[in-house]
């Protein structure tokens, strides 16, 4: 059976293993619950909500209880009904009515003050120089761009302008040159589907979209903010602890709105630095003469070049001795893909999720379950990771490559999403998966 090249296994294991531990440790049944905030922003919101609840509760009891109570107390049974006997004809009581106009107004005013304070608090950003991430919505996946060269802003692809950072370094966010021309920039790091952040610091986000309006929402870290094409919205998240957080697009964004999810992984700052360094490296080109597995991966790379590279990017080292690195045309047109960008696959295998974070890249296996190991491939070492509990989700990946629209609603005939490749044989799929597994 094929294995990961050993030297890569350790690296991939770093993230995937961390995620695996987190998955089991945080195996909670409600990953999107707003009642269980983790980050300081979400906590601030929840704390405000916590003292609104009792007020709402009191009003609820008074009004609903009052309505039901009065109905019961003042009810006249049909047999007791006397059409000529009227209750006291009260027309109103201005004093009382002004009171119950004023009292709710005062209560609402009392709620308004902390509300407005918190509105401004949530907008507070880091001083310039801290890590910023740009979040870009696409139909139907998210891209995260890291300002790794640390110049405080995100470079424009053709180098003739900048997309400013969330602190407003360098200019007004509203002055951004539009449309986003950043798909192939290499000064900053582009990571699809999974946002990785260091713990213990606020990460400022610039949120935008390439196509329609999406909304970025990690309920446990903060509220949501829309990704509006033509606009640069800012927002921030912070995770005090190591953990994995999930999110779901919350602005209806077309056919596969439900297939647009988010995964955020918070790592210790050291691990994060290591992750960042790994992600910045170009992919290795598998050698056609490097043994059975590498040859298979090399076959896969050839298929990738023929079928996938028209949309997906894999950054390779132009000086790699094993082959000629991919080169890419700079532009998509909307005829090919409405959003104008597909996920960058340079570090595909290092992520825990794929397909808009709807599928897990790795699945847990039970090492004691012989049948399962049988399926995975013989001795069970095949795609198993370090601790033997995770394996590459090759079955889902094959289904995805062969017929993506059947796995997640998409409409490739109208340039929306990934097309199916019915022409791929089982061997082709094996080769492609083998190649993708090297991209870690």
């Amino acid at each position: 059976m094929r294995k990961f090249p050993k030297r890569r296994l350790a690296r991939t294991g770093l993230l995937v293993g961390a995620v695996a531990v987190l998955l089991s440790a945080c195996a909670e049944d409600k990953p999107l619950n707003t009642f269980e905030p983790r980050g300081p922003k979400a906590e601030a919101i929840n704390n405000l909500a916590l003292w609104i609840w009792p007020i709402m509760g009191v009003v609820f009891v008074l009004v609903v209880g009052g309505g039901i109570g009065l109905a019961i107390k003042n009810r006249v049974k049909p047999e007791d009904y006397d059409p000529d006997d009227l209750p006291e004809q009260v027309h109103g009581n201005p004093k009382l009515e002004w009171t119950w106009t004023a009292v709710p107004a005062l209560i609402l005013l009392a709620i308004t003050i902390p509300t407005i304070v918190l509105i401004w608090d949530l907008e507070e950003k880091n001083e310039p120089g801290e890590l910023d991430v740009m979040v870009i919505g696409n139909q139907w996946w998210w891209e995260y761009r890291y300002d790794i060269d640390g110049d405080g802003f995100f470079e424009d692809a053709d180098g003739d302008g900048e997309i400013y950072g969330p602190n407003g370094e360098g200019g007004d966010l509203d002055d951004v040159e539009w449309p986003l021309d950043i798909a192939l920039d290499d000064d900053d790091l582009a990571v699809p589907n999974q946002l990785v952040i260091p713990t213990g610091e606020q990460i400022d986000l610039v949120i935008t979209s390439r196509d329609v309006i999406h909304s970025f929402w990690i309920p446990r870290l903060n509220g949501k903010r829309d990704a509006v094409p033509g606009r640069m919205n800012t927002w921030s998240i912070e995770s005090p602890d190591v953990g994995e957080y999930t999110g779901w697009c919350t602005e209806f964004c077309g056919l596969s709105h439900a297939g647009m999810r988010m995964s955020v992984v918070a790592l210790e700052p050291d691990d994060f630095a290591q992750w960042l360094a790994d992600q910045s490296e170009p992919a290795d080109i598998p050698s056609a003469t490097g043994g059975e597995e590498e040859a298979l991966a090399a076959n896969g790379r050839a298929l990738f070049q023929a079928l996938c590279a028209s949309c997906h990017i894999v950054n390779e080292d132009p000086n790699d001795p094993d082959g000629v690195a991919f080169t890419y045309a700079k532009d998509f047109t909307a005829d090919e893909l409405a959003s104008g960008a597909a996920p960058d696959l340079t570090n595909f295998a290092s992520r825990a999720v794929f397909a808009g974070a709807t599928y897990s890249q790795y699945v847990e296996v039970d090492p004691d379950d012989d049948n399962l190991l049988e399926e995975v491939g013989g001795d069970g070492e095949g795609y198993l990771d370090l601790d033997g509990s995770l394996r590459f989700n090759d079955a889902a990946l094959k289904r995805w490559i062969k017929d993506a629209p059947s796995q997640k609603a998409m409409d490739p005939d109208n340039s929306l999403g990934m097309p199916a490749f019915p022409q791929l044989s089982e061997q082709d799929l094996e080769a492609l998966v083998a190649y993708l597994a090297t991209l870690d």
Partner: protein
Amino acid sequence: MAIIENETLALPSGDDPAVERPLGVFTRPRNQTGLKNWLTTVDHKKIGIMYGSAAMFFLLIGGLAALLIRIQLATPNNTFLSADAYNRIFTMHGTVMVFLVVMPIGAAFANYLMPLQVGARDVAFPRINAFSFWVFLAGGLMLNTSWFLGGGADGGWFNYAPNNGIIYSPSTGIDFWNMGLMIAGIGSLTGAVNLITTVLNMRAPGMTLMRMPVFVWMTLVTQFLLLFAIPVLTVAQVLLLMDRNFGASFFDVKLGADPLLWQHLFWIFGHPEVYLMILPAFGIVSEVIPAFARKPLFGYPFMVFSGIAIGFMGWGVWAHHMFVSGLGPLTVSGFAFATMFIAVPTGVKVLNWLATLWGGRLTLNTAMLFSIGLVTQFTIGGLSGVSHAIAPWDTQQTDTYYIVAHFHYVLFGGALFGFIAGFYFWWPKVFGYKLNEAHGKFNFWGMVLGFNLTFGPMHILGLQGMPRRMYAYDDAMGFNTWNMVATIGSFILAISTLWVLVNAFISYNRWKAAGRPDPGPDPWDARTLEWSVQSPTPEHNFDYTPVVTDLDDFWHRKFVEDENHRLKRVATGAELAQPGNAEGVHLPAPSYWPIVLAFSLPVIGYGVIFTLWLTIPGIVLMMVALFGWALEPADDPDVEGHHDGDDHEPEGSDGDDHELVGASS
């Protein structure tokens, strides 16, 4: 006839009516009954009934869509519906329910009751009234033909740009949405002009503004909201139409467009829209509760002014739908502030209803139960509404099921409960028989149970992070239990809501079997003018125009204060009611043109969607109808005893002056 379509219409007596005949292409329809009569009627009561019936038809469509949604969401990762089908169904559910159910039921009540309650014989422009209905129906039917011709709209009822653009939604569903609602909007606009004119201009002598029933007030506010909100939506739709069908680039981000333009236009329309859906129901319960508490509405002026305040403030809160769109903290703070305080007039209303219950002698029949149901359930929706105004918290709530719960508590638990209260209350006035109380109680308790089971859990689901508009959710997300509960509740709700119709059917049969007993003009011993005419309302409404001296005038004719300032009955409603004698009364003639004109518009609409050639016959038909209408006298010169102009009677008139113009035969 109290029609003032033109001030001087007809021929001086003795002139040969044949002179006029060439002007109309058709001979005027004369049928008093049958299909042709319904198609050509200009009677506000029949139009009101047709509004209600059409809304019930669309309610079945919207309700079926709702059930499909709930079946799909009953279990995780359900494959009952595809993502595409689900998107179209939830879009059509929202659109149909808002534009073709709640709004027209409001229009049904306004049309039927408002002229009666202000003491008018019809609305100001009876033919335009018929046109308003037919054009609403034409737009609604056109929208629904998209089920067969374009697969249904798939952009959500809010239809945000740029997802509504031709690139992201290449099927014709959104074109149907656009054209259908634009056409229906014309009906809302003409209806608003008509009803406002009627309220302001055609009140009976003595019916001052502050003697108008609260329902009339709420109708007036509602129609003003429509008058000013509809054109804003129309502009948004025109921009979309230009973009999708004529290659304009209003929402093309590449060329520098700002997609938030759509959101601003839509919600400047959309928030007043929310209030114009609920205010008629507020008006209805403000009539029902005093009638069955047997005391006047507590704080009438506060009720009126809070309604007006809601109407005004409703224009200043639209951006609370956009708290997460990135408007900046200053804008968000301002709109959060404004949104908070729109709760004040609404709260005043709720407290005044409770105060009306206080010390009352309550008859807890179905109409009253539904009214109390509105008060309590709307309050829940109002409270969650305040929680949305807390903008930071709203960033956790918006576009989750918490919002779905909120607006269903407002629009179903509020508006629809109020409307059903109105059905039970006014049914004998409209159809001449009461709805069965036992079935009514079943109807009510089933709906309360089903409603709260369906939408109550959605509060929890939303705060547990379930976003809206998701066709499927994962097993691991923890949404399973409450979704299943909601689905079960939705079936209880569907059956019990349907029970309104079942009850109407059963009650009708029993009434018929009992020999069609007359419920009497005033079966509830109620307060307003519509109860002073026979049931069902005679076609001419009033034999003579009532003269009003008081708020709740009819009540104060039945009960008079004695020396201890206690009200004592001096007469029953039946004794005071007008006998329903139509002698000497002349009614406006029916006309073909409203329906012809109305149905010329979808022809143009289909032309825009499919082939522009089709617009040519549509426009020709429209112009023919317009000129045919314009040249047709409001009155049929061929009918014997026709008369013209306005017979708005001076105060104290006893109706004899109909002889002047009416009874020339």
